[in-house]
């Protein structure tokens, strides 16, 4: 992984000193809250429902064991001994203090971490395929470019006061595991064709996003030679910065500009800007690319047999282990190695939360068996990207003793949930208790296995931090005359077949949600052609009708009920 050099160290230390000075001026009264708020947000500090919240950047979801231990330490020393991994691959601490924040940032800087631009109307932490560098289907390791973007976007003087926040996601693999279609800019590394044959570049997608106006990103550039990434991003950002709406916060994201202009006109404006930019002054010099790429050189691992007798024997005798192996352990690009997913979704627990002790347990596993690497996924889980197959049993045993061995990756209990009204001042309804009740309802592993791959996402408000639009089943918390209600959407997908879910009908009170989900699952399991047909495939084949009828009855059309509800 990338390591800071003297310059990077000096940069984050300067940033800590700057924020310490800004906090001092705020407490002394030289800065009003209005003037201070964008500054603290650009250092990851929110004022939430109960307290300040610090959002720590995990650049493109990559952590070392030492960094994870420091996160555990910070959570214990200045917070309440746990943290919440987010859909932006970051970590949130819910009980921070303004007066402690500079010290927390200084502690992060010691391990080459920061909170820069984890909030605010600026370019946020770039998210990436959590299997980057180890996935068998990878064209090129996207982490090199994610790090390039991290450096380029950090305190980019032109783009700190954009109309609204700006999120970039990148993948270098054939399968999209970074939900690039739901980002302001999605980057997919592609092999060139025709005149670009033999080259590697980016497919650039723009204007995706969730929130109250969800859009799937549109193609902006089919093949951007990778060496021009930064000048092209700069041109795109400049068009957005100058022309994105600033009169209405709900219409300020780039997706609104792109869809108002039409993607062709937006592309024309970007190309016009790009043609005027002096590219060599912006683009990454080859020497700098080489310097950064060296840090992401593949591990020098000897291929090993892809079968292991001990593992095979245990799989046959230990159902829990077999399930975990089947659901959480993925193929690695080097034979005899595996990608191990660590679920933070034990049914009944808070999705994405980890205690300091659990963070330390994962750090120890990364040191002992995982080549010192940990990833955070946007599904709010962790990954040990490289574990020898022969060590997988030992990793499982250690996870089991830390309460981290739930074998439910991408199953119905692997729920994405935002903090909701339990922590968030923007929320309309709680998300965590609903996630817990649903997970408990499907806690029987055999039941979850039978249902198969299913993305269930819950947001506590229309801002959609819980990605409900992209869930095969999405749940949105709404405030209905002072009570928490939940709207259900079906058919969303965050993957290559990206789609936005459709609202099924009127909302339900919290206590009826698990039953409603069970009804929906019942329609799927009785309607699927075979167990090989996923929930999403069945939904797409059958349409919403049988699900609506099962939930609301055939007598009334759901549109009527929506009208009545409004």
């Amino acid at each position, binding site marked *: 992984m990338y390591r800071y050099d003297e310059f990077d160290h000096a940069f984050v230390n*300067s940033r800590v000193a700057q924020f310490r000075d*800004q906090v001092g001026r705020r407490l002394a009264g030289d800065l009003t809250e209005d003037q201070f708020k964008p500054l603290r947000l650009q250092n990851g500090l929110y004022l939430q429902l109960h307290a300040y919240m610090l959002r720590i950047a995990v650049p493109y979801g990559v952590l070392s064991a030492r960094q994870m231990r420091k996160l555990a330490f910070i959570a214990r020393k200045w917070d309440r001994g746990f943290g919440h991994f987010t859909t932006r691959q970051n970590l949130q601490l819910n009980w921070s203090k303004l007066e402690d924040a500079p010290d927390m940032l200084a502690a992060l800087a010691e391990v080459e971490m920061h909170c820069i631009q984890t909030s605010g109307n600026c370019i946020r932490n770039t998210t990436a395929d959590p299997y980057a560098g180890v996935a068998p289907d990878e064209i090129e390791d996207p982490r090199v470019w994610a790090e390039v973007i991290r450096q*380029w976007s950090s305190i980019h*003087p*032109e783009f*700190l*006061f*954009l109309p609204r926040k700006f999120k970039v996601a990148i993948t270098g693999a054939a399968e999209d595991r970074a939900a690039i279609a739901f980002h302001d800019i999605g980057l997919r590394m592609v092999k060139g064709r025709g005149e670009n044959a033999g080259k590697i570049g980016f497919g650039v997608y723009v204007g995706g996003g969730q929130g109250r106006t969800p859009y799937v990103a549109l193609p902006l550039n089919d093949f951007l030679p990778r060496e021009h990434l930064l000048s092209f991003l700069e041109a795109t950002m400049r068009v957005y910065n100058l022309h994105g709406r600033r009169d209405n916060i709900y219409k300020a994201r780039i997706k609104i500009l792109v869809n108002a202009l039409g993607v062709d006109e937006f592309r024309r404006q970007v190309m016009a800007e790009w043609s005027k930019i*002096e590219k060599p002054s912006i683009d990454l*010099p080859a020497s700098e690319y080489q310097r950064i790429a060296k840090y992401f050189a593949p591990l020098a691992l000897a291929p090993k047999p892809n079968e292991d007798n001990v593992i095979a024997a245990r799989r046959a005798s230990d159902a829990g282990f077999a399930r975990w192996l089947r659901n959480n352990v993925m193929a690695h690009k080097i034979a005899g190695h595996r990608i191990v997913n660590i679920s933070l979704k034990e049914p009944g627990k808070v999705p994405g939360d980890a205690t300091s002790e659990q963070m330390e347990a994962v750090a120890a596993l990364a040191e002992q068996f995982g080549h010192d690497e940990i990833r955070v996924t946007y599904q709010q889980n962790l990954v040990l990207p490289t574990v020898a197959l022969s060590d997988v049993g030992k990793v499982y045993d250690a996870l089991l003793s830390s309460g981290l061995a739930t074998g439910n990756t991408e199953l119905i209990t692997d729920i994405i949930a935002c903090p909701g009204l339990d922590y968030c001042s923007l929320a309309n309804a709680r998300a965590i208790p609903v996630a817990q009740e649903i997970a408990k309802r499907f806690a029987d592993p055999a039941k979850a296995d039978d249902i198969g791959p299913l993305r269930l996402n819950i947001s506590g408000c229309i801002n959609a931090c819980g990605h409900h639009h992209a869930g095969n089943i999405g749940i949105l918390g709404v405030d209905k005359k002072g009570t928490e209600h939940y709207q259900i959407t079906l058919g969303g997908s965050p993957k290559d077949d990206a789609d936005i879910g459709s609202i099924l009908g009127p909302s339900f009170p919290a206590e009826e949600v698990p039953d409603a989900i069970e009804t929906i699952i019942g329609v799927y399991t009785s309607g699927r052609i075979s167990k090989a047909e996923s929930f999403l495939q069945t939904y797409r084949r059958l349409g919403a009708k049988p699900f609506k009828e099962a939930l609301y009855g055939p007598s009334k059309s759901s549109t009527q009920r929506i009208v009545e509800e409004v």
Partner: protein
Amino acid sequence: MSKLWKNSRFVNDTFVVVDDAAPLPQATPVIVSLKRWRESRGELLALKAPIGVAVDATAEFDVATDDLGKLALIAIPFAKFTDGRGYSLARRLRDTLTFEGEVRATGEVLIDQIPLMLRCGFDSFVVSHAPTLRTLEAGHLSVVREVYQTAVYGRARTTPSFGRVPVLEAAE
């Protein structure tokens, strides 16, 4: 009470802002609107004094006819400090249009944004916010000197190399 900050110190403002309807003073540096510059270029050039143009944050310069080379100053407003369009306008002026005159920031110019403005090509600042005035008087600019981007700094362009550019030192 606003003051003009330039080259790391407060200086007297030699320019006079002239409303569109007001008569043009003789032999005095003036700042007029882009509209007036476009309409009365001949009259303005005949004044034989430095001419500045105040634009709004939506300004689209017409490279073919705006004759930016004849201008001594372009003033860009920050109606609110959170309105970041001015940064992109300044970079267009410096990078794309290679404007060499003074680029002046007006409006809500606050201490924590001045370093960003400097890096985008602004080189003078009309400041009225009291704590900002006080902090500038004290010569205390809270700034991250290490920068990852190539970016203009006043008239001095940095070497085109990614990162590792101690930009702010260059012009102090």
